[in-house]
């Protein structure tokens, strides 16, 4: 074993890290998010250890709902990234496709992709853990719709970044959703967050979706205010994301990133 050769291989990767601020940020990002998320979860269980008593499946149901959100967003991003990785990107943009057609096609294809992934998991819940997400009843459809809209919105925003900044924006595609897990109050109620953070969280449709899911499963009551709030916020964010996508496309044309994307 030659020390110099091993050193050469190591510095090859160190040069890469040193030369890219997004890479350094990426290395710091994941542990920080994990600590914040699990910090709030631990705090919640310490303070309210009997909160989930006799409500088996609340955490599992929330996990499935969160995964649905995660899959819808990642599916949208993946469809776009696939075109970059296969170097087919330019072919698409010289085809007579309107931007609205691209967004619509990706939105519906992402749904199919998401359902392929999530349906088996939902079906496994019952025989393995005796829990069914169907317990959420009719509002389940509205909760799924809300999460799907938010997932697609995030997908469109990340795709806009890919259009504008090129493949270097790829890491954001993977990390965007994890940032929202602690703020979205997936596994604990909003009240567990510090007050200043609650103001920010209230701007996220996720908070209303998960508060409502918990309310239905624990209290057996449906609060349509939460569902309406989530849908309204989604509508606003979705419209904004579409506008940003159009701006990114024109920005990409100005910057020339549509040519040979993926190179």
């Amino acid at each position, binding site marked *: 074993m030659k020390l110099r050769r091993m050193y050469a291989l190591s510095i090859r990767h160190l040069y890469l890290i040193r030369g890219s601020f997004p890479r350094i940020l990426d290395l710091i990002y994941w542990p920080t998010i994990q600590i914040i998320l699990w910090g709030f979860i631990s705090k919640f269980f310490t303070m309210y250890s009997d909160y989930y008593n006799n409500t088996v499946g609340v955490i599992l149901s929330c996990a499935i709902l969160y995964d649905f959100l995660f899959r819808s967003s990642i599916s949208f991003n993946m469809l776009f990234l696939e075109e970059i990785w296969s170097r*087919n990107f330019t072919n698409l943009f010289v085809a007579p496709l309107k931007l609205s057609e691209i967004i619509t096609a990706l939105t519906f294809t992402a749904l199919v992709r998401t359902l392929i992934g999530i349906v088996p998991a939902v079906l496994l819940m019952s025989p393995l853990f005796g829990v069914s997400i169907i317990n959420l009843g009719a509002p389940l459809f509205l909760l799924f719709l809300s999460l799907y809209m938010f997932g697609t919105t995030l997908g469109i925003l990340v795709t806009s970044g890919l259009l504008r900044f090129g493949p270097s924006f790829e890491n954001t595609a993977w990390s965007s959703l994890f940032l929202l897990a602690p703020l979205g109050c997936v596994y604990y109620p909003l009240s567990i967050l510090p007050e200043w953070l609650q103001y920010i969280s209230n701007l996220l449709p996720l908070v209303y979706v998960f508060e409502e899911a918990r309310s239905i499963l624990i209290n057996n009551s449906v609060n349509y205010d939460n569902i309406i709030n989530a849908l309204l916020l989604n509508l606003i964010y979705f419209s904004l994301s579409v506008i940003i996508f159009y701006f990114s496309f024109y920005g990409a044309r100005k910057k020339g990133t549509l040519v040979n994307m993926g190179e």
Partner: protein
Amino acid sequence: MSIKIKNLYKNYKRFEAVKNLNFEIKKGSITGLLGPNGCGKTTTIGMILGLIRPTKGEVLINNKDIEIEKNRISVLEKMNFISPYVELPKKLSVKENLIVYGKMYEVKNLQNRINTLSNDLNLENFLNKKTGELSSGQKNRVSLAKSLINNPEILLLDEPTASLDPDTGDYVRSYIENYAKKNNTTILLASHNMSEVERLCENIMMMKQGKIIDEGTCEELIFKHGRVNLEETFLKLVRE
């Protein structure tokens, strides 16, 4: 369809990639765009395809300004493009790729069109094979089939025979030549292969540092610069 470029500029921050381009490519003609790497050929093609927004000037396709979104889409329906730097999805079969693009371009009688192109370009034997499993010569023919799927009136070719062996390269050149004659297709060909340009192009534009420094027929350029062939003429012009 014709291509008209008027006072075209493209700047990337302070770098001037294209400076005051003016040219016209008449319907049914084949024009060569020559120049060293980084001279602005790809940027020019990108602007004609609507992929890059000009800093100044106009790209008119059949007198339609492609900066207007409605025009861009209607023009793209009748254009197509091939480049060795752009590929088709590798995990889709050749036939699936042609179906996808045929539908995007709303090709009527798509199955017939695919059959014709498969027959003309000898794709039948690997039509159901994954595109990523093909040799570079086969991939090139598939890309050519994709670029002809909509029977384009304008074809932009960016180094269409790069990385091909001489036999396949010759086959592709012959096919393009015959196709253009038969269909009266307007072609802009960017290439570093001088014999290809000599053989195919009626008119040649020489680019250097974002500008067209000379243009004319192949014979005119060779005669004007006192050289014996296009390659020497090219070298003289880019080294001046």
